[in-house]
């Protein structure tokens, strides 16, 4: 594939895969916790949390990106603290692209996982408790396996969204080749220069291919998990 794609194009694809991978992986535990709180939690402010989680889905991505810049920029309070304490710089770095992609994909992930949790029969968890299993064990051995199909769907959805994230990413971390020029940014950039149609089309093809592959993979995994959950 590296022969067919030019080095700049290949760089963008590899970067996008890396960003989407980390964005999905890092937001997954938080997504499960948030979905659990929304599906099962009974606490004041649940609706506020729900609205907050969904905000990136509704707001213009540029707004999300700008808010990220205001919060995590090099001179912004959180950004400065992160840089001083952990040496972690987000603005204009690929790590910032991970944050932007993760936040934009988060609502989709939480929605899918929440549906999966709501589909788990709480009576099975009760049964596990009467057999002596503590709550954490019940979650690991009953709830988690039973919500696996939805979990996979949520992760794949988040990955695809992260791969394609453009607005928030370009606002927050700009469009620096090799650092923050992800696949959509690269397509956009190629379209700005004369003769860029060829590379842009190749990247479009890659995008479609990756999306289809992710879809097929998730269908396969979800099908297997669903079969297990059905008890056959």
């Amino acid at each position, binding site marked *: 594939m590296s022969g067919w794609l030019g080095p700049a194009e290949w760089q963008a694809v590899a970067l996008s895969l890396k960003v989407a991978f980390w964005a999905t992986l890092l937001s997954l535990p938080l997504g499960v916790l948030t979905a659990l709180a929304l599906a099962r939690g009974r606490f004041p402010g649940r609706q506020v949390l729900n609205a907050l989680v969904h905000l990136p889905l509704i707001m213009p991505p540029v707004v999300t990106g700008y808010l990220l810049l205001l919060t995590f920029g090099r001179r912004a309070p959180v950004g400065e603290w992160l840089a001083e304490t952990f040496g972690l710089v987000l603005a204009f770095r690929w790590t910032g692209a991970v944050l932007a992609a993760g936040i934009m994909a988060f609502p989709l992930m939480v929605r899918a996982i929440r549906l999966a949790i709501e589909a788990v*029969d709480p*009576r*099975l968890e*009760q*049964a*596990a*408790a*009467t*057999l*002596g*299993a*503590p*709550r954490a064990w*019940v979650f690991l*051995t*009953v709830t988690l*396996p*039973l919500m696996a199909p939805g979990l996979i769907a949520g992760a794949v959805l988040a990955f695809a969204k992260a791969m394609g994230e453009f607005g928030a990413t370009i606002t927050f971390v700009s469009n620096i080749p090799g650092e923050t020029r992800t696949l959509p940014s690269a397509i956009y950039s190629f379209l700005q220069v004369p003769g860029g149609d060829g590379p842009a089309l190749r990247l479009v093809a890659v995008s479609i291919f990756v999306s289809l592959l992710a879809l097929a993979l998730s269908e396969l995994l979800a099908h297997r998990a669903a079969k*297990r*959950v*059905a*008890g*056959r």
Partner: protein
Amino acid sequence: MSLSVDIAHRLGSFDLNVAFEAPAGVTALFGRSGSGKTSVVNAVAGLMRPTSGRIALNGDVLFDAKTGPEQPPHRRHLGYVFQEARLFPHLSVRKNLAYGQRFARPGAERPDLKTIADLLDITPLLDRRPGTLSGGERQRVAIGRALLSAPRMLLMDEPLSALDAARKADILPYLEAVRDSAGIPILYVSHNMTEVARLATTVVIMDAGRVVKAGPAEEVLSDLDLVPMLGVRDAGALLQATVLRDHDDGMTELSIAGGTLFLPDMGLGPGSRTRVRIMAHDVILADHRPEGLSALNILHGRVIALRDGRGPGVIVRLDCGGDTLLARITRRSAQALDIAPGREVWAVVKSVSVARTDIGAG
């Protein structure tokens, strides 16, 4: 070994207020649906928190509204067999059975998976998945799973109600085996009198969130006051019997307090204890010992009490040499035979009228 329950709970317009003791053996919570039976079991298991009251097992307080936090369900060590089995669909039968084993109380006598699987006849199913099992198989696995968690007590909420009559009859002997081998108290919820009569040593009758009557099964089932509530078609007395011998013609001769009974062969060997339920509508009364009848069982007894039903019938309670028998006859016959307390009568029971499901291991 004894469970004592004394709880009150308000849920909307439903008001639950029950107190009873469940000693060793099987205690049946009997009542029509909506009488609050399942709420009681859920409170015992810790799946529902009553508004007030106290639940203790052998002196160990599981819940006391006055003294603060109750024991969470997973620390109560009570095996719960639910109406709908609730097997874990993603685990094999073997893993379902073993699920609670790791959480058994330290020092508890741990039953062995193979022994339990053999007792319940589920060994051939061990590598199957719950989705491929029949209803009866599923329920047997659920019973085994509960037993293997080495519980201090077994809770069963209508474990047979989802099964058809034939399957029920298949599983009842397994439940008897569990009752006779597990050595732990069992709280058994049911609205089926046949099951209760087969299994229960103690019966607690519930209606509209209240305990109407509680006591030994023989006593409660032959209580004339309860007949209208339990349903006159379900009225019948419970007799303890011992098998004397099996005859070549397919009959079994049993000894009861008031004489002998001939019933269809039930495959229990001589000497085994059985319990037999004789339905009130299967008993005929005569004012002298009848001759030339096909019925094999003619017992002499004395009328203790009788009660008018809503229809043309009366129900008569007899003492037959120590056993209690109920007979349901018409008011017209009662007048013709001059049935009154103290009257000596003969009770006639056709052998074949006693259903197989009404004969069980004692």
